[in-house]
């Protein structure tokens, strides 16, 4: 790496750190009288970051996302969106800044793809620049506007909701296990698509996931266990055999290629 580009990197990092979108400060949360389920979590998300939230089943990934989305309220600590408490926003104003996509997208009412995607415009009185058809093109469903959502495959359905999220135009997108229950082909396609969209539209993404190999694709990972942060940082730092053993309670071996790639063997 030349010195110029290094300097460029440093500059970029400084300017980014000024743009903290979301901040968790010692956040606690518990469901109905039980002991804390989320236990003193702190992290921050900067403008344009693509972050994987990794942890085993029941580690609190979904709860962290719901707290980040303002759906659940922290019992203790602070969650700030653009420097202001997330609970202080009006629903509509918050919806312009962040959007949340749950893991399960069940649907019994036969909306057309177009009807569903256009709900992304609900927070706005004046629609933003993107149109429904453009959003559908972006997720590769240009010809499916009139299809019924109930007739689509799991992968297509997921992309329809992502198109809705794009139309919503928020700078922070929270995705709960968007790759779960998809074939490997769709997992790769969707991950590529999300990265591409994230770069093009400069949005920050926080994605919950449990697959370690997919986590290797991220530049920044938050590893959690039992509602606590184990480690935050680059894959080389977070995805160590020791930390993964703690998080998932299994022995894994990490193999790195000379080209820079890596994979996990069991």
């Amino acid at each position: 790496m030349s010195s110029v580009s290094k300097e460029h990197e440093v500059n970029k990092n400084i300017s980014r750190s000024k743009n903290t979108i979301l901040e968790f400060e010692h956040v606690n949360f518990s469901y109905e009288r039980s002991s804390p389920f989320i236990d003193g979590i702190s992290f921050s998300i900067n403008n344009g970051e693509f972050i994987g939230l990794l942890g085993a089943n029941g580690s609190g990934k979904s709860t962290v996302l719901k707290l980040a989305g303002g759906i659940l309220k922290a019992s203790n600590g602070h969650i700030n969106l653009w420097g202001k408490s997330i609970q202080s926003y009006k629903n509509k104003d918050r919806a312009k800044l962040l959007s949340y996509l749950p893991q399960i997208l069940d649907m019994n009412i036969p909306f057309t793809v177009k009807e569903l995607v256009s709900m992304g415009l609900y927070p706005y009185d004046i629609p933003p620049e993107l149109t429904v058809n453009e959003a559908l093109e972006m997720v590769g469903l240009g010809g499916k506007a009139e299809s019924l959502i109930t007739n689509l495959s799991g992968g297509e359905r997921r992309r329809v909701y992502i198109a809705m999220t794009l139309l919503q135009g928020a700078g922070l997108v929270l995705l709960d296990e968007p790759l779960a229950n998809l074939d490997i082909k769709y997992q790769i396609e969707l991950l590529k698509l999300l990265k591409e969209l994230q770069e093009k539209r400069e949005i920050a993404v926080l994605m919950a996931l449990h697959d370690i190999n997919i986590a290797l694709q991220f530049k920044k990972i938050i590893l959690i266990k039992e509602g606590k942060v184990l480690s935050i940082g680059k894959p080389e730092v977070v995805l160590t055999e020791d930390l993964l053993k703690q998080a998932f309670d299994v022995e894994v071996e990490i193999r790195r290629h000379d080209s820079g790639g890596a994979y996990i063997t069991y």
Partner: protein
Amino acid sequence: MKLKLIVMVIIAFVIFGVALFIGPKFINPFSINEIEREILFSIRLPRVIVSVLIGAALGASGAVLQGILRNPLADPYILGISSGAALTAVIGIISGLSFLGIVTIPVLAFIGALITGVFVGAMGWKRGGFWPERLLLAGVGLGFLFSAMLMLIMSISSDEGLRRATLWIFGDLSLADWSIIPYGFVFITAGFAIAMSRAKALNSLILGDELSHSLGFSPRKERFILFISVGLMTAASVSLGGMIGFIGLLVPHIGRFFVGSDNKSLIPFSAVAGGILLCISDLVAKSLLSPTELPAGIITAVIGAPYFLYLLRRKNVLSI
């Protein structure tokens, strides 16, 4: 979408016209005598208006309820509101109450419906909001209880009271009278206006509470407002003409087929289509075995039940 609605409204007016002039006795609109004028304005017109109001209320509230419960099989009567209305109305009919004249029974039914609605709402409320499953189970449970009480009362009542009560339960529009129309109109219009003003929120609720929240709504608040809308429309419709089955379940599905599932168009379409369907059903009900009148509720159920079974076989309509 607009065009389809306009076409529907035109069809509706044609059918209202037909319903006015065709009946046990045909009335030629171009040569009306005194008696025919009396029949037209005192009997047929209020009846057509009542059938349209009830049908519209049931169609619209069915669409709203299927949305707030996220269940395409929901029917306004599933909330038990109609059973509550039936219980108070039948008590009134059998004990021969008439302290408010001709509107006594409708008023009793409305009171029963409102009390039941509040009760179901209270049962469905937990942690600052309505929970679809709780509402549904509370409504079904209460409905069973009220039906049992209704059976008990009917089983110990006199023949004449029993006949009138049975007619009322199956949906009897022959009691339609000008004096009750304004009340029905006010409550149904209010419920409809609330539903229309919250159509976007209703769409978002269908996606689930978390997505509704993400899109900038407060799902629990919206469900509460929409529950009031359904309660007003259902209570008013039951008090106007008894229990008329299947319109609330059937019409929204027809609507989804014609105008799609977006509630901004589905609610008005369901209202117009519900009005048309009940108007036709009532016309059939009073013409089929003329001069004997059948309760319109039987006709809507005879049309509705087979269609309902057909829907069950269609993947497009029900993804379950």
